[in-house]
């Protein structure tokens, strides 16, 4: 490998390490901002209550004998749970694998029921077999009042149930199943486009098949039975008992759809439908996932499962009426929306979390104004503006190519992906702008460019500095261009990489142009002059000393030497 390729690989390796370390640092800084912003919300802004009064009343309206109007509430989880790392990769990974956790339609492991102990009932989908497997203990009668327990394994496919896996049972491809009610268990297979009901009782092992959904019908069920995602993020507590002055308190029954005559199904579009478990056909709408009020808004009233961080649907029935309460939590965890639907899926009343505004009300209005909790957490609560500015700065320190990718991919990523994303920023201001369907394409792009303006200015400055330093060091033109392009794409990490890998030479003054030149080059990189090496010629001047005295003759008398010897 020649030195040029080696240097290139060295630069790439350094760049990878720099980008990774810088992304980690920026991630934790943004995470800290998010946690502190959530902590700004007062308790009243983490809970929403609605009063579906006329649904709980008689023909003339709400029963005037009621002491308190019926109320349905939803609340966010405490901030300690969020700070504990919910949504981060490690906890999310375990949630995806372990049974019983409600993380929405996304799941890696198909485990529907898991009871601990040697004889516990377990129901799961085996992708290798394409069958749903149930194991457990059955009680087999062996006489009068005598039962023997035996371990059983059953395999269920689209065509039936069998104690052994057989080809004739068919194959499920990627089933969506009810994990709450398993007698019978409702299953939907998107490849087969039909619902199934598997009866696991030992004397009724049968699979009922529903009609195939027409191809032109836009229906894509993603969750059946328990309609819940992020159960640790939001909660719909049991509604209060309906109390009136003349009658005894009537309990309000609420459930995650444990009704015998209908099963709740969530569609990929966010619509909730009722399924008839007998005919396995969609009976009618039950409601939809309401879109929470975010900072920029989205222009849609209905949310898809991947648009929100959490949701929960509860069927509510009381002495006075029946309905469906659906709560959703926004991506950033700052806004909660709660809607109540009647028996035919029409929204009756809805509300979202808000912070009471202080000061004079708007002209023509009375009472205290209420600011949506998301907007308040970004601008109005004490300390919110500082956190917003900090987040804005951190986002603009990211490589511009990541900001661009965040804008393009933001509307398509799952709401919780931002909790563990290092390079893409689905919860950034730029991505929020991309999700605002109310503004047109031009408006969204213009706002995104404005929000990323500091990043663009920074990369221009850094690219100029890199180019100037490259010229000073005498780097080839192609190398300077490559560094400039890399800095434009990757911003600050590219500049840091350049500073770490640039040639470390000490420049000497050029005798011709007076600028710094590299001592390892034959010619000056600025003026092109070679080294001035003086020739080795003797000088024209001489250093003259005293004239040497002439030497005397050699006939000196020897006697003088002899007389001195005596």
């Amino acid at each position, binding site marked *: 490998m020649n030195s040029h390729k080696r240097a290139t*690989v060295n630069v790439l390796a350094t760049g*990878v390490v720099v980008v*990774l370390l810088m992304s980690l640092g920026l991630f934790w800084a943004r995470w800290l901002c998010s946690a502190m912003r959530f902590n700004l919300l007062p308790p009243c802004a983490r809970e929403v209550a609605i009063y579906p009064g006329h649904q709980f009343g008689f023909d003339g309206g709400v029963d005037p004998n009621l002491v308190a109007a019926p109320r349905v509430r939803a609340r966010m989880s405490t901030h300690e749970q969020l700070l504990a790392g919910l949504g*981060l*990769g490690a906890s999310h990974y375990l949630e995806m694998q372990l049974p019983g956790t409600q993380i929405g339609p996304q799941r890696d*492991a198909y485990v529907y029921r*898991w009871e601990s102990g040697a004889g516990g009932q377990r129901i799961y989908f085996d992708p290798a077999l394409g069958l749903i497997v149930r194991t457990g203990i059955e009680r087999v009668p062996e006489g009068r009042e005598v039962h023997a327990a035996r371990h059983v394994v059953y395999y269920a496919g689209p065509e039936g149930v069998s104690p052994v896996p057989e080809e004739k049972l068919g194959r499920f491809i990627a089933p969506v199943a009810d994990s709450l009610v398993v007698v019978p268990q409702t299953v939907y297979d998107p490849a087969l486009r039909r619902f199934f009901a598997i009866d696991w009782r030992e004397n009724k092992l049968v699979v009922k098949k529903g009609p195939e959904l027409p191809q032109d019908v836009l229906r894509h069920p993603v969750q059946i039975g328990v309609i819940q995602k992020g159960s640790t993020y939001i909660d719909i507590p049991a509604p209060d008992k309906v109390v009136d002055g003349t009658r005894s308190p009537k309990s309000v029954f609420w459930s995650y759809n444990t009704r015998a005559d209908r099963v709740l199904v969530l569609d990929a579009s966010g619509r909730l439908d009722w399924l008839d478990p007998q005919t396995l056909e969609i009976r009618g709408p039950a409601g939809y996932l309401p879109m929470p009020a975010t900072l920029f808004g989205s222009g849609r009233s209905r949310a898809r499962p991947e648009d929100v961080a959490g949701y929960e649907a509860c069927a509510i029935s009381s002495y006075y009426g029946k309905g469906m309460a659906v709560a959703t939590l926004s991506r950033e965890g700052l806004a909660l929306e709660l809607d109540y639907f009647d028996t035919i899926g029409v929204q009756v009343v809805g509300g979202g979390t808000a912070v009471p505004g202080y000061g004079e009300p708007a002209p023509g209005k009375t009472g205290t104004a209420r600011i949506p909790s998301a907007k308040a957490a970004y601008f109005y609560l004490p300390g919110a503006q500082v956190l917003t500015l900090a987040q804005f700065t951190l986002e603009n320190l990211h490589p511009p190519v990541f900001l661009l990718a965040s804008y393009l991919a933001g509307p398509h990523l799952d709401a919780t992906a931002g909790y563990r994303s290092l390079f893409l920023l689905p919860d950034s201001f730029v991505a929020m702008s991309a999700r605002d369907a109310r503004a047109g394409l031009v408006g969204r792009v213009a706002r995104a460019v404005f929000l990323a303006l500091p990043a663009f200015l920074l990369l221009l400055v850094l690219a100029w500095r890199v180019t100037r330093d490259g010229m000073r060091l005498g780097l080839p033109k192609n190398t300077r261009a490559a560094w400039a392009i890399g800095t434009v794409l990757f911003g600050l990490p590219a500049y840091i990489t350049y500073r770490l890998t640039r040639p470390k030479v000490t420049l000497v003054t050029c005798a011709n142009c007076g600028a710094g030149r590299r001592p390892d080059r034959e010619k000056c990189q600025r003026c092109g002059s070679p080294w001035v090496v003086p020739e080795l010629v003797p000088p024209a001047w001489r250093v003259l000393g005293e004239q040497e005295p002439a030497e005397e003759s050699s006939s000196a008398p020897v006697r003088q030497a002899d007389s001195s010897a005596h």
Partner: protein
Amino acid sequence: MLTLIAREIRDNIVSVALPCLVSALGITVAVIFAFSRGNGGTFPVTIMFTPILLLAFCSLGASQAYGDRANRISSLLATLGITRNRIFAARVLAGLLIVLICLVPLAVTTIFLLWRFAPPLEFYGRMVAEISLTVLLAAVACYFAGLLVGWTTSKAWLLAGCVLLLLSLASLVVIKGFGPAAMALLALFLGATLWYTWHTFTSASL
């Protein structure tokens, strides 16, 4: 090459013994804990020893590089007609050998105890494999990070660099989890650090 590897182990015997000791301790505690409780609970015990092992691997790499730089061992070996590539390869192979010797028995013990006490492996077999592979990649990445920061004569930089890189790698696993995304990032990191370390070592003046 075997002689060079043996010399690397001998020259850094303390740093080699430390992760082996931690691994042995982890295995012992996990076995005692599992059998004393009778219903498993091994996983949390091995999780506690994993960060200590990562620290030990990082210190192994740092001591190898720092000792070489400070005592000019490579200069001595170069006079014996051994190329720098062979010296570096022997160093890395010695480190990888220690990583495998420490991690594999710990992983095997954990899997055995899970099989003995926990529900059947057909569900979390994939989880065990992914977590094991991620921890192995993280351990190798910590070792290479130690090699990277160890090539210095300043103890302050050595300590600061080790702490920074260790925290970064640990937070990478916390953020991305144990799936393919974390493995890809760890593989990218250890490839980049290995190349940078090799480049620095082979181009440094002796």
